[in-house]
Protein backbone atom coordinates (compact mmCIF):
# COMPACT_ATOMS: atom_id res chain seq x y z
CA UNK A 1 0.00 0.00 0.00
CA UNK A 2 1.45 3.32 -1.04
CA UNK A 3 -1.63 5.18 0.17
CA UNK A 4 -1.63 6.26 3.79
CA UNK A 5 -5.00 5.72 5.50
CA UNK A 6 -3.66 6.44 8.96
CA UNK A 7 -4.97 9.64 10.45
CA UNK A 8 -2.54 12.31 9.27
CA UNK A 9 -4.12 15.46 10.72
CA UNK A 10 -3.54 16.46 14.32
CA UNK A 11 -7.11 17.77 14.34
CA UNK A 12 -9.07 15.83 11.72
CA UNK A 13 -12.23 17.82 12.55
CA UNK A 14 -10.53 20.99 11.37
CA UNK A 15 -9.70 19.42 8.02
CA UNK A 16 -13.20 18.05 7.52
CA UNK A 17 -14.65 21.40 8.55
CA UNK A 18 -12.43 23.29 6.11
CA UNK A 19 -13.72 21.22 3.20
CA UNK A 20 -17.34 21.42 4.32
CA UNK A 21 -17.15 25.17 4.76
CA UNK A 22 -15.68 25.61 1.32
CA UNK A 23 -18.92 24.17 -0.06
CA UNK A 24 -21.28 26.24 2.09
CA UNK A 25 -23.55 28.44 0.05
CA UNK A 26 -22.66 26.83 -3.25
CA UNK A 27 -25.10 25.34 -5.73
CA UNK A 28 -24.64 21.66 -6.58
CA UNK A 29 -22.96 22.60 -9.87
CA UNK A 30 -20.59 25.02 -8.15
CA UNK A 31 -19.79 22.39 -5.53
CA UNK A 32 -18.97 19.90 -8.26
CA UNK A 33 -16.71 22.48 -9.95
CA UNK A 34 -14.95 23.12 -6.67
CA UNK A 35 -14.43 19.42 -6.03
CA UNK A 36 -13.03 18.90 -9.52
CA UNK A 37 -10.46 21.64 -9.07
CA UNK A 38 -9.66 20.51 -5.52
CA UNK A 39 -9.08 16.91 -6.60
CA UNK A 40 -6.68 18.04 -9.34
CA UNK A 41 -4.76 20.36 -7.02
CA UNK A 42 -4.43 17.68 -4.34
CA UNK A 43 -3.55 14.96 -6.85
CA UNK A 44 -0.73 17.09 -8.20
CA UNK A 45 0.49 17.82 -4.69
CA UNK A 46 0.67 14.09 -3.97
CA UNK A 47 2.47 13.62 -7.27
CA UNK A 48 2.54 9.83 -7.02
CA UNK A 49 0.50 7.84 -9.51
CA UNK A 50 0.41 4.70 -7.36
CA UNK A 51 -0.98 6.64 -4.40
CA UNK A 52 -3.49 8.35 -6.67
CA UNK A 53 -4.66 5.04 -8.13
CA UNK A 54 -5.08 3.51 -4.68
CA UNK A 55 -6.97 6.57 -3.51
CA UNK A 56 -9.29 6.33 -6.53
CA UNK A 57 -9.83 2.62 -5.91
CA UNK A 58 -10.66 3.18 -2.25
CA UNK A 59 -13.03 6.05 -3.02
CA UNK A 60 -14.71 4.03 -5.74
CA UNK A 61 -15.23 1.01 -3.46
CA UNK A 62 -16.83 3.28 -0.84
CA UNK A 63 -19.00 4.89 -3.49
CA UNK A 64 -20.20 1.51 -4.81
CA UNK A 65 -20.86 0.19 -1.28
CA UNK A 66 -22.83 3.29 -0.43
CA UNK A 67 -24.99 3.15 -3.51
CA UNK A 68 -25.60 -0.59 -2.90
CA UNK A 69 -26.73 0.06 0.66
CA UNK A 70 -29.04 2.80 -0.54
CA UNK A 71 -30.58 0.45 -3.08
CA UNK A 72 -31.14 -2.22 -0.43
CA UNK A 73 -32.79 0.29 1.88
CA UNK A 74 -35.17 1.29 -0.89
CA UNK A 75 -36.19 -2.33 -1.54
Amino acid sequence: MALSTRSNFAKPDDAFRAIVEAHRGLTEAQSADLDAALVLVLANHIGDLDVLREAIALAKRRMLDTSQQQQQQQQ
Partner: protein
Amino acid sequence: MAASTAQAKTQFGYRRHPDQDRSGANVAEHPVVVVGAGPVGLSLAIDLAQRGQRVVLLDDADRIGEGSRAICFSKRSLEFWDRLGVGDRMVEKGVVWSVGKIFHGAAQLYQFNLLPEEGHKRPAFINLQQFYAEAYLVDRVEQLPDIDLRWRNKVIALESRNDGVALTIATPEGSYQVHASFVVACDGARSSLRQMVGADFAGQVFEDQFLIADVKMTAAFPTERWFWFDPPFHAGRSALLHRQPDDIWRIDLQLNPDADPVAEKQPENVRPRIARMLGHDKFEFEWISLYKFQCRRMARFIHGRVVFAGDSAHQVSPFGARGANSGLEDAENLAWKLDRVLRRLSPEGLLESYHIERSAAADENIRESTRSTDFMAPVTKQEARLRQAVLSLAEDTEFGKRMVNGGRLSVPSVYDTPLSSEDRDDWRGGPRPGASMPDAPVTEQGGGSTYLTDVFIRQGTRFTLLEFGNGVAADIPDGVGTIRVGGEGGLVDAQGLAGKRYDAEPGTAYLLRPDGYVAARFRNAARPALDAALARAAGVS
Protein backbone atom coordinates in the same frame (compact mmCIF):
# COMPACT_ATOMS: atom_id res chain seq x y z
CA MET B 1 -10.36 23.91 -55.50
CA ALA B 2 -7.15 22.83 -57.16
CA ALA B 3 -4.35 21.99 -54.82
CA SER B 4 -1.10 23.71 -55.59
CA THR B 5 0.82 20.84 -57.02
CA ALA B 6 2.51 22.91 -59.71
CA GLN B 7 5.97 22.23 -58.28
CA ALA B 8 5.52 18.48 -58.15
CA LYS B 9 4.69 15.84 -60.70
CA THR B 10 1.55 14.09 -59.62
CA GLN B 11 0.21 12.30 -62.70
CA PHE B 12 1.76 9.05 -63.84
CA GLY B 13 1.05 6.60 -66.60
CA TYR B 14 0.08 2.96 -66.62
CA ARG B 15 2.61 0.85 -68.51
CA ARG B 16 2.24 -2.74 -69.50
CA HIS B 17 4.72 -5.07 -67.79
CA PRO B 18 6.03 -8.38 -69.20
CA ASP B 19 4.72 -10.08 -66.01
CA GLN B 20 1.26 -9.58 -67.48
CA ASP B 21 2.01 -12.04 -70.29
CA ARG B 22 2.90 -14.84 -67.91
CA SER B 23 0.43 -17.31 -66.42
CA GLY B 24 0.03 -20.70 -64.79
CA ALA B 25 3.34 -22.28 -63.83
CA ASN B 26 5.18 -19.38 -65.43
CA VAL B 27 3.93 -16.51 -63.29
CA ALA B 28 6.64 -14.10 -62.20
CA GLU B 29 8.29 -14.73 -58.84
CA HIS B 30 9.27 -11.68 -56.78
CA PRO B 31 10.99 -11.49 -53.42
CA VAL B 32 8.80 -8.65 -52.18
CA VAL B 33 5.72 -6.86 -53.43
CA VAL B 34 4.68 -3.63 -51.68
CA VAL B 35 1.06 -2.64 -52.15
CA GLY B 36 0.27 1.07 -51.97
CA ALA B 37 2.50 3.94 -53.15
CA GLY B 38 1.76 6.37 -50.32
CA PRO B 39 4.48 7.76 -48.04
CA VAL B 40 4.84 4.45 -46.22
CA GLY B 41 4.96 2.15 -49.26
CA LEU B 42 7.28 4.46 -51.18
CA SER B 43 9.66 4.87 -48.24
CA LEU B 44 9.70 1.15 -47.54
CA ALA B 45 10.41 0.36 -51.19
CA ILE B 46 13.30 2.85 -51.27
CA ASP B 47 14.82 1.49 -48.07
CA LEU B 48 14.59 -2.09 -49.36
CA ALA B 49 16.05 -1.13 -52.75
CA GLN B 50 18.93 0.73 -51.10
CA ARG B 51 19.64 -2.50 -49.24
CA GLY B 52 19.85 -4.28 -52.58
CA GLN B 53 16.39 -5.84 -52.77
CA ARG B 54 14.31 -5.85 -55.93
CA VAL B 55 10.87 -4.48 -55.11
CA VAL B 56 7.62 -4.44 -57.02
CA LEU B 57 5.48 -1.52 -55.85
CA LEU B 58 1.82 -1.53 -56.86
CA ASP B 59 -0.69 1.29 -56.70
CA ASP B 60 -4.29 1.17 -57.84
CA ALA B 61 -4.32 4.84 -58.91
CA ASP B 62 -2.15 6.67 -61.43
CA ARG B 63 -1.80 9.89 -59.55
CA ILE B 64 -0.79 11.28 -56.20
CA GLY B 65 -3.87 12.20 -54.23
CA GLU B 66 -4.34 15.93 -53.79
CA GLY B 67 -6.01 17.62 -50.93
CA SER B 68 -5.38 17.81 -47.30
CA ARG B 69 -3.92 14.78 -45.65
CA ALA B 70 -0.80 14.48 -43.53
CA ILE B 71 1.08 17.74 -43.01
CA CYS B 72 3.38 17.31 -39.98
CA PHE B 73 6.53 15.26 -40.41
CA SER B 74 8.62 14.59 -37.32
CA LYS B 75 12.34 14.79 -36.70
CA ARG B 76 12.48 11.02 -36.68
CA SER B 77 10.75 10.84 -40.08
CA LEU B 78 13.18 13.41 -41.48
CA GLU B 79 16.13 11.39 -40.21
CA PHE B 80 14.67 8.32 -41.94
CA TRP B 81 14.19 10.32 -45.13
CA ASP B 82 17.80 11.51 -44.89
CA ARG B 83 18.81 7.87 -45.15
CA LEU B 84 16.57 7.51 -48.19
CA GLY B 85 18.20 10.53 -49.85
CA VAL B 86 15.13 12.79 -49.75
CA GLY B 87 15.52 14.60 -46.41
CA ASP B 88 17.03 17.79 -47.82
CA ARG B 89 14.29 18.23 -50.39
CA MET B 90 11.57 17.76 -47.80
CA VAL B 91 13.14 20.25 -45.40
CA GLU B 92 13.87 22.83 -48.13
CA LYS B 93 10.22 22.83 -49.20
CA GLY B 94 8.72 22.32 -45.77
CA VAL B 95 7.95 24.87 -43.10
CA VAL B 96 10.14 24.28 -40.05
CA TRP B 97 8.58 24.67 -36.62
CA SER B 98 9.10 23.67 -33.02
CA VAL B 99 6.91 25.99 -30.94
CA GLY B 100 3.29 25.35 -30.07
CA LYS B 101 0.94 27.72 -28.29
CA ILE B 102 -2.24 26.88 -26.44
CA PHE B 103 -4.97 29.43 -26.00
CA HIS B 104 -8.06 29.36 -23.81
CA GLY B 105 -10.62 31.86 -25.00
CA ALA B 106 -8.64 34.86 -26.22
CA ALA B 107 -5.75 34.41 -23.78
CA GLN B 108 -2.61 32.37 -24.25
CA LEU B 109 -2.31 29.67 -21.59
CA TYR B 110 1.19 28.54 -22.35
CA GLN B 111 3.67 27.67 -25.05
CA PHE B 112 5.99 24.72 -25.54
CA ASN B 113 9.12 24.14 -27.56
CA LEU B 114 9.47 20.60 -28.88
CA LEU B 115 13.20 20.95 -29.52
CA PRO B 116 14.58 23.54 -27.15
CA GLU B 117 18.23 22.52 -27.56
CA GLU B 118 20.76 23.14 -30.32
CA GLY B 119 22.91 20.56 -32.02
CA HIS B 120 20.43 18.51 -34.03
CA LYS B 121 20.56 18.23 -37.80
CA ARG B 122 16.79 18.14 -38.12
CA PRO B 123 14.09 20.29 -36.53
CA ALA B 124 11.30 18.97 -34.32
CA PHE B 125 8.85 19.11 -37.22
CA ILE B 126 8.28 20.34 -40.71
CA ASN B 127 4.90 20.98 -42.20
CA LEU B 128 4.62 19.79 -45.77
CA GLN B 129 1.62 18.79 -47.80
CA GLN B 130 1.59 15.02 -48.22
CA PHE B 131 1.51 15.29 -52.01
CA TYR B 132 4.90 16.99 -52.00
CA ALA B 133 6.35 14.28 -49.79
CA GLU B 134 4.96 11.61 -52.11
CA ALA B 135 6.15 13.39 -55.24
CA TYR B 136 9.72 13.65 -53.87
CA LEU B 137 9.64 9.99 -52.87
CA VAL B 138 8.44 9.01 -56.35
CA ASP B 139 11.32 11.00 -57.86
CA ARG B 140 13.70 9.03 -55.67
CA VAL B 141 12.03 5.75 -56.64
CA GLU B 142 12.61 6.61 -60.28
CA GLN B 143 16.36 6.85 -59.61
CA LEU B 144 16.42 3.29 -58.27
CA PRO B 145 16.28 0.62 -61.00
CA ASP B 146 15.52 -2.07 -58.41
CA ILE B 147 12.05 -0.62 -57.78
CA ASP B 148 9.42 -1.50 -60.31
CA LEU B 149 6.56 0.95 -59.64
CA ARG B 150 3.36 -0.09 -61.41
CA TRP B 151 0.52 2.42 -61.47
CA ARG B 152 -3.09 1.29 -61.95
CA ASN B 153 -2.25 -2.15 -60.67
CA LYS B 154 -4.88 -3.15 -58.15
CA VAL B 155 -4.65 -6.30 -56.07
CA ILE B 156 -7.99 -8.07 -56.34
CA ALA B 157 -7.19 -11.45 -54.84
CA LEU B 158 -4.64 -12.86 -52.48
CA GLU B 159 -3.84 -16.47 -51.76
CA SER B 160 -1.45 -17.33 -48.95
CA ARG B 161 0.91 -20.20 -49.54
CA ASN B 162 3.61 -21.75 -47.36
CA ASP B 163 6.44 -20.09 -49.23
CA GLY B 164 4.74 -16.85 -50.14
CA VAL B 165 1.67 -15.20 -51.53
CA ALA B 166 -0.07 -15.39 -54.90
CA LEU B 167 -1.55 -12.07 -55.94
CA THR B 168 -4.08 -11.41 -58.66
CA ILE B 169 -3.70 -7.91 -60.01
CA ALA B 170 -6.20 -6.00 -62.13
CA THR B 171 -4.97 -3.47 -64.71
CA PRO B 172 -6.64 -1.48 -67.50
CA GLU B 173 -5.62 -4.38 -69.77
CA GLY B 174 -7.02 -7.17 -67.67
CA SER B 175 -5.66 -9.08 -64.72
CA TYR B 176 -2.52 -11.12 -64.15
CA GLN B 177 -0.85 -13.04 -61.37
CA VAL B 178 2.46 -12.78 -59.57
CA HIS B 179 3.98 -14.76 -56.76
CA ALA B 180 5.81 -12.98 -53.95
CA SER B 181 7.88 -14.34 -51.09
CA PHE B 182 6.57 -11.45 -48.99
CA VAL B 183 3.83 -8.90 -49.47
CA VAL B 184 3.74 -5.67 -47.51
CA ALA B 185 0.33 -4.02 -47.39
CA CYS B 186 0.72 -0.24 -47.21
CA ASP B 187 -2.70 0.29 -48.73
CA GLY B 188 -4.14 2.66 -46.19
CA ALA B 189 -6.93 2.77 -43.63
CA ARG B 190 -9.41 1.12 -45.97
CA SER B 191 -6.89 -1.59 -46.83
CA SER B 192 -8.34 -4.17 -49.19
CA LEU B 193 -5.52 -6.58 -48.34
CA ARG B 194 -6.60 -6.49 -44.71
CA GLN B 195 -10.02 -7.65 -45.81
CA MET B 196 -8.48 -10.31 -48.07
CA VAL B 197 -6.61 -11.90 -45.15
CA GLY B 198 -9.82 -11.74 -43.11
CA ALA B 199 -8.40 -9.61 -40.29
CA ASP B 200 -10.65 -7.32 -38.28
CA PHE B 201 -9.84 -3.78 -37.38
CA ALA B 202 -11.55 -3.01 -34.11
CA GLY B 203 -11.35 0.15 -32.06
CA GLN B 204 -13.05 3.28 -30.90
CA VAL B 205 -15.06 5.64 -33.10
CA PHE B 206 -15.24 9.24 -31.94
CA GLU B 207 -18.55 11.00 -32.38
CA ASP B 208 -17.24 14.53 -32.70
CA GLN B 209 -16.86 15.88 -36.21
CA PHE B 210 -13.97 18.03 -37.32
CA LEU B 211 -13.82 20.40 -40.25
CA ILE B 212 -10.53 20.74 -42.08
CA ALA B 213 -9.98 23.74 -44.30
CA ASP B 214 -6.77 24.58 -46.10
CA VAL B 215 -6.83 28.25 -47.02
CA LYS B 216 -4.44 30.30 -49.12
CA MET B 217 -3.55 33.70 -47.73
CA THR B 218 -0.58 35.85 -46.85
CA ALA B 219 -0.59 36.23 -43.11
CA ALA B 220 1.72 37.47 -40.44
CA PHE B 221 1.09 34.62 -37.99
CA PRO B 222 4.34 33.07 -36.81
CA THR B 223 5.31 29.58 -37.90
CA GLU B 224 3.94 27.87 -34.83
CA ARG B 225 1.23 25.41 -33.98
CA TRP B 226 -1.66 27.31 -32.40
CA PHE B 227 -4.40 25.49 -30.56
CA TRP B 228 -7.47 27.06 -28.97
CA PHE B 229 -9.91 25.79 -26.41
CA ASP B 230 -13.15 27.70 -26.57
CA PRO B 231 -11.86 30.47 -28.84
CA PRO B 232 -13.88 33.68 -29.22
CA PHE B 233 -14.41 32.88 -32.92
CA HIS B 234 -15.68 29.34 -32.28
CA ALA B 235 -17.37 29.29 -28.90
CA GLY B 236 -17.36 26.12 -26.89
CA ARG B 237 -15.26 24.09 -29.30
CA SER B 238 -11.58 23.78 -30.22
CA ALA B 239 -9.54 25.03 -33.18
CA LEU B 240 -6.08 24.45 -34.61
CA LEU B 241 -3.98 26.57 -36.96
CA HIS B 242 -0.89 25.32 -38.78
CA ARG B 243 1.21 26.84 -41.51
CA GLN B 244 2.14 24.92 -44.66
CA PRO B 245 4.33 25.85 -47.64
CA ASP B 246 2.95 28.02 -50.48
CA ASP B 247 1.05 30.35 -48.09
CA ILE B 248 -1.38 27.60 -47.24
CA TRP B 249 -2.78 27.44 -43.72
CA ARG B 250 -4.42 24.38 -42.19
CA ILE B 251 -7.41 25.15 -40.03
CA ASP B 252 -9.05 22.44 -38.01
CA LEU B 253 -12.36 23.21 -36.31
CA GLN B 254 -14.20 20.92 -33.97
CA LEU B 255 -17.92 20.77 -34.77
CA ASN B 256 -20.83 19.62 -32.71
CA PRO B 257 -21.50 15.89 -32.88
CA ASP B 258 -24.91 16.61 -34.41
CA ALA B 259 -23.64 19.11 -37.02
CA ASP B 260 -25.00 18.42 -40.52
CA PRO B 261 -21.98 17.31 -42.56
CA VAL B 262 -23.38 18.42 -45.91
CA ALA B 263 -24.28 21.93 -44.75
CA GLU B 264 -21.09 22.38 -42.71
CA LYS B 265 -18.94 21.64 -45.74
CA GLN B 266 -20.42 24.35 -47.95
CA PRO B 267 -17.85 27.09 -48.56
CA GLU B 268 -20.46 29.78 -47.86
CA ASN B 269 -20.95 28.31 -44.38
CA VAL B 270 -17.26 27.75 -43.70
CA ARG B 271 -16.15 31.20 -44.88
CA PRO B 272 -17.73 33.34 -42.11
CA ARG B 273 -16.37 31.03 -39.41
CA ILE B 274 -12.84 31.33 -40.72
CA ALA B 275 -13.18 35.05 -41.36
CA ARG B 276 -14.07 35.43 -37.66
CA MET B 277 -10.98 33.43 -36.75
CA LEU B 278 -8.58 35.35 -38.99
CA GLY B 279 -10.19 38.74 -38.58
CA HIS B 280 -10.51 39.18 -42.35
CA ASP B 281 -11.80 37.32 -45.37
CA LYS B 282 -8.89 37.73 -47.75
CA PHE B 283 -8.31 34.03 -48.30
CA GLU B 284 -9.12 31.35 -50.84
CA PHE B 285 -10.14 27.81 -50.04
CA GLU B 286 -7.79 25.11 -51.27
CA TRP B 287 -9.59 22.29 -49.57
CA ILE B 288 -12.53 21.67 -47.27
CA SER B 289 -13.41 18.34 -45.77
CA LEU B 290 -15.23 16.98 -42.78
CA TYR B 291 -14.20 13.97 -40.84
CA LYS B 292 -14.80 11.78 -37.85
CA PHE B 293 -12.01 9.63 -36.69
CA GLN B 294 -11.28 6.28 -35.24
CA CYS B 295 -8.54 4.84 -33.12
CA ARG B 296 -7.93 1.19 -33.89
CA ARG B 297 -5.36 -1.36 -34.85
CA MET B 298 -5.06 -4.88 -36.20
CA ALA B 299 -4.52 -7.53 -33.55
CA ARG B 300 -1.58 -8.87 -35.58
CA PHE B 301 0.50 -6.91 -38.09
CA ILE B 302 1.72 -10.11 -39.74
CA HIS B 303 -0.56 -12.64 -41.42
CA GLY B 304 1.57 -15.45 -42.81
CA ARG B 305 3.73 -13.76 -45.42
CA VAL B 306 1.59 -10.62 -45.58
CA VAL B 307 2.88 -7.77 -43.42
CA PHE B 308 0.83 -4.65 -42.68
CA ALA B 309 2.38 -1.21 -42.27
CA GLY B 310 1.02 2.29 -41.78
CA ASP B 311 -2.69 3.12 -41.77
CA SER B 312 -3.60 -0.36 -42.99
CA ALA B 313 -2.43 -1.67 -39.60
CA HIS B 314 -3.38 1.19 -37.29
CA GLN B 315 -5.33 4.40 -37.27
CA VAL B 316 -5.21 7.27 -34.80
CA SER B 317 -6.85 10.65 -34.42
CA PRO B 318 -4.85 13.40 -36.09
CA PHE B 319 -3.97 15.35 -32.92
CA GLY B 320 -0.30 14.63 -32.35
CA ALA B 321 0.88 13.92 -35.90
CA ARG B 322 1.02 10.22 -35.15
CA GLY B 323 -0.48 8.86 -38.37
CA ALA B 324 2.01 9.28 -41.20
CA ASN B 325 4.96 9.49 -38.80
CA SER B 326 4.15 6.16 -37.17
CA GLY B 327 3.69 4.64 -40.63
CA LEU B 328 7.16 5.82 -41.60
CA GLU B 329 8.52 4.32 -38.38
CA ASP B 330 6.86 1.05 -39.40
CA ALA B 331 8.66 1.20 -42.74
CA GLU B 332 12.10 1.82 -41.27
CA ASN B 333 11.53 -0.88 -38.66
CA LEU B 334 10.50 -3.44 -41.27
CA ALA B 335 12.93 -2.73 -44.11
CA TRP B 336 16.15 -3.99 -42.55
CA LYS B 337 14.46 -7.01 -40.99
CA LEU B 338 12.83 -8.06 -44.25
CA ASP B 339 16.14 -7.56 -46.05
CA ARG B 340 17.95 -9.85 -43.60
CA VAL B 341 15.24 -12.50 -43.81
CA LEU B 342 15.25 -12.43 -47.62
CA ARG B 343 19.04 -12.83 -47.58
CA ARG B 344 18.71 -15.66 -45.05
CA LEU B 345 21.01 -13.80 -42.67
CA SER B 346 18.28 -13.95 -40.04
CA PRO B 347 15.47 -16.45 -39.50
CA GLU B 348 11.93 -15.46 -40.47
CA GLY B 349 11.23 -15.11 -36.74
CA LEU B 350 13.04 -11.75 -36.81
CA LEU B 351 9.91 -10.34 -38.42
CA GLU B 352 7.96 -11.14 -35.26
CA SER B 353 9.92 -8.32 -33.60
CA TYR B 354 8.37 -5.97 -36.15
CA HIS B 355 4.95 -6.94 -34.86
CA ILE B 356 6.05 -6.72 -31.20
CA GLU B 357 7.72 -3.33 -31.55
CA ARG B 358 5.32 -1.62 -33.89
CA SER B 359 2.07 -2.91 -32.37
CA ALA B 360 3.27 -1.60 -28.98
CA ALA B 361 4.06 1.72 -30.69
CA ALA B 362 0.56 1.71 -32.19
CA ASP B 363 -0.92 1.14 -28.73
CA GLU B 364 1.07 4.08 -27.41
CA ASN B 365 -0.02 6.29 -30.29
CA ILE B 366 -3.64 5.29 -29.85
CA ARG B 367 -3.45 5.91 -26.10
CA GLU B 368 -1.89 9.35 -26.55
CA SER B 369 -4.18 10.50 -29.31
CA THR B 370 -7.27 9.13 -27.54
CA ARG B 371 -6.37 11.12 -24.44
CA SER B 372 -5.97 14.28 -26.53
CA THR B 373 -9.26 13.68 -28.25
CA ASP B 374 -11.08 13.02 -24.98
CA PHE B 375 -9.63 16.21 -23.56
CA MET B 376 -10.83 18.21 -26.58
CA ALA B 377 -14.20 16.53 -26.69
CA PRO B 378 -15.11 15.43 -23.14
CA VAL B 379 -17.54 12.51 -23.17
CA THR B 380 -19.47 13.14 -19.94
CA LYS B 381 -20.54 16.19 -18.00
CA GLN B 382 -18.06 15.40 -15.25
CA GLU B 383 -15.23 15.01 -17.78
CA ALA B 384 -16.11 18.44 -19.13
CA ARG B 385 -16.06 19.77 -15.57
CA LEU B 386 -12.59 18.31 -14.90
CA ARG B 387 -11.31 19.72 -18.15
CA GLN B 388 -12.68 23.13 -17.27
CA ALA B 389 -10.92 22.90 -13.92
CA VAL B 390 -7.63 22.07 -15.65
CA LEU B 391 -8.02 24.96 -18.09
CA SER B 392 -8.72 27.46 -15.31
CA LEU B 393 -5.95 26.11 -13.07
CA ALA B 394 -3.60 26.43 -16.06
CA GLU B 395 -3.97 30.19 -15.94
CA ASP B 396 -1.80 30.46 -12.84
CA THR B 397 -0.28 27.05 -12.06
CA GLU B 398 2.47 25.20 -13.82
CA PHE B 399 0.90 21.79 -13.19
CA GLY B 400 -2.33 22.97 -14.78
CA LYS B 401 -0.50 24.13 -17.91
CA ARG B 402 1.18 20.77 -18.26
CA MET B 403 -2.11 18.93 -17.83
CA VAL B 404 -3.79 20.82 -20.69
CA ASN B 405 -3.85 18.38 -23.60
CA GLY B 406 -4.07 20.06 -26.99
CA GLY B 407 -2.29 17.14 -28.66
CA ARG B 408 0.91 15.40 -27.58
CA LEU B 409 3.18 15.40 -30.59
CA SER B 410 4.76 12.32 -32.03
CA VAL B 411 8.05 11.13 -30.59
CA PRO B 412 9.66 7.80 -31.43
CA SER B 413 8.63 4.92 -29.17
CA VAL B 414 11.13 3.19 -26.95
CA TYR B 415 10.83 -0.51 -27.68
CA ASP B 416 10.64 -3.25 -25.09
CA THR B 417 11.87 -5.88 -27.45
CA PRO B 418 13.56 -9.27 -27.51
CA LEU B 419 16.17 -7.72 -29.82
CA SER B 420 17.58 -5.57 -27.00
CA SER B 421 20.28 -6.72 -24.60
CA GLU B 422 19.68 -5.59 -21.05
CA ASP B 423 21.99 -3.01 -19.52
CA ARG B 424 24.61 -4.61 -17.29
CA ASP B 425 26.59 -1.46 -16.53
CA ASP B 426 25.66 1.73 -14.70
CA TRP B 427 24.10 4.51 -16.74
CA ARG B 428 22.96 7.93 -15.63
CA GLY B 429 21.57 8.93 -19.01
CA GLY B 430 21.82 8.27 -22.71
CA PRO B 431 19.41 6.23 -24.83
CA ARG B 432 18.57 2.88 -23.29
CA PRO B 433 18.36 -0.25 -25.45
CA GLY B 434 15.21 0.04 -27.55
CA ALA B 435 15.47 3.84 -27.89
CA SER B 436 16.41 5.64 -31.10
CA MET B 437 19.83 7.23 -31.47
CA PRO B 438 20.00 10.88 -30.40
CA ASP B 439 21.67 13.22 -32.84
CA ALA B 440 24.67 15.40 -31.96
CA PRO B 441 27.07 17.65 -33.85
CA VAL B 442 30.60 16.34 -34.41
CA THR B 443 33.64 17.49 -36.35
CA GLU B 444 35.52 15.31 -38.77
CA GLN B 445 39.30 15.00 -38.71
CA GLY B 446 39.51 17.28 -41.75
CA GLY B 447 37.57 19.92 -39.83
CA GLY B 448 34.19 19.48 -41.54
CA SER B 449 31.08 19.76 -39.38
CA THR B 450 28.61 16.93 -39.49
CA TYR B 451 26.09 15.07 -37.35
CA LEU B 452 26.04 11.61 -35.84
CA THR B 453 22.93 10.77 -37.85
CA ASP B 454 24.81 11.57 -41.08
CA VAL B 455 27.86 9.58 -40.04
CA PHE B 456 25.54 6.64 -39.33
CA ILE B 457 24.17 6.91 -42.87
CA ARG B 458 27.69 6.83 -44.28
CA GLN B 459 28.28 3.58 -42.39
CA GLY B 460 25.59 2.07 -44.60
CA THR B 461 22.76 1.96 -42.04
CA ARG B 462 23.84 -1.48 -40.94
CA PHE B 463 24.65 -2.74 -37.44
CA THR B 464 27.11 -0.12 -36.23
CA LEU B 465 29.15 0.30 -33.09
CA LEU B 466 29.28 3.88 -31.85
CA GLU B 467 32.40 4.07 -29.68
CA PHE B 468 33.70 6.81 -27.46
CA GLY B 469 37.44 6.55 -27.75
CA ASN B 470 39.73 5.37 -25.00
CA GLY B 471 42.74 4.77 -27.20
CA VAL B 472 41.98 1.09 -27.71
CA ALA B 473 39.57 0.30 -30.52
CA ALA B 474 37.00 -2.37 -29.70
CA ASP B 475 37.36 -5.73 -31.40
CA ILE B 476 34.50 -5.41 -33.86
CA PRO B 477 32.84 -8.35 -35.65
CA ASP B 478 32.93 -8.47 -39.45
CA GLY B 479 30.23 -6.55 -41.25
CA VAL B 480 29.60 -4.17 -38.36
CA GLY B 481 30.13 -0.49 -39.03
CA THR B 482 32.03 1.75 -36.65
CA ILE B 483 31.73 5.33 -35.60
CA ARG B 484 34.46 6.56 -33.28
CA VAL B 485 34.04 9.73 -31.30
CA GLY B 486 37.21 11.02 -29.65
CA GLY B 487 40.55 9.27 -29.50
CA GLU B 488 43.09 9.15 -32.25
CA GLY B 489 41.51 9.52 -35.70
CA GLY B 490 38.00 9.75 -34.24
CA LEU B 491 35.33 12.39 -34.69
CA VAL B 492 35.79 15.41 -32.49
CA ASP B 493 33.02 16.12 -30.01
CA ALA B 494 33.93 19.79 -29.81
CA GLN B 495 30.82 20.90 -27.93
CA GLY B 496 30.71 17.80 -25.78
CA LEU B 497 27.10 17.18 -26.81
CA ALA B 498 27.65 13.68 -28.18
CA GLY B 499 29.30 12.63 -24.94
CA LYS B 500 26.56 14.22 -22.90
CA ARG B 501 23.64 12.79 -24.88
CA TYR B 502 25.15 9.29 -24.73
CA ASP B 503 26.33 9.51 -21.09
CA ALA B 504 29.74 8.61 -22.46
CA GLU B 505 32.93 7.77 -20.65
CA PRO B 506 36.11 6.62 -22.37
CA GLY B 507 35.33 3.15 -23.68
CA THR B 508 31.55 3.57 -23.81
CA ALA B 509 30.04 1.88 -26.86
CA TYR B 510 26.51 1.66 -28.28
CA LEU B 511 25.48 -1.08 -30.68
CA LEU B 512 23.05 0.51 -33.14
CA ARG B 513 20.60 -1.48 -35.21
CA PRO B 514 20.31 -0.79 -38.94
CA ASP B 515 17.28 1.44 -38.18
CA GLY B 516 19.32 3.57 -35.76
CA TYR B 517 17.83 2.13 -32.57
CA VAL B 518 20.07 1.10 -29.70
CA ALA B 519 20.39 -2.69 -29.40
CA ALA B 520 22.88 -2.75 -26.52
CA ARG B 521 25.38 -0.54 -24.74
CA PHE B 522 28.56 -1.19 -22.85
CA ARG B 523 31.01 0.68 -20.68
CA ASN B 524 33.63 -1.55 -22.22
CA ALA B 525 32.66 -3.55 -25.28
CA ALA B 526 34.24 -6.99 -24.84
CA ARG B 527 33.98 -9.16 -27.92
CA PRO B 528 31.87 -12.02 -26.46
CA ALA B 529 29.26 -9.59 -25.10
CA LEU B 530 29.22 -7.74 -28.42
CA ASP B 531 28.76 -10.98 -30.38
CA ALA B 532 25.92 -12.02 -28.11
CA ALA B 533 24.19 -8.65 -28.41
CA LEU B 534 24.58 -8.72 -32.17
CA ALA B 535 23.12 -12.22 -32.46
CA ARG B 536 20.19 -11.22 -30.28
CA ALA B 537 19.52 -8.03 -32.25
CA ALA B 538 19.61 -9.98 -35.52
CA GLY B 539 17.11 -12.50 -34.18
CA VAL B 540 19.68 -15.27 -34.53
CA SER B 541 19.70 -16.26 -30.86
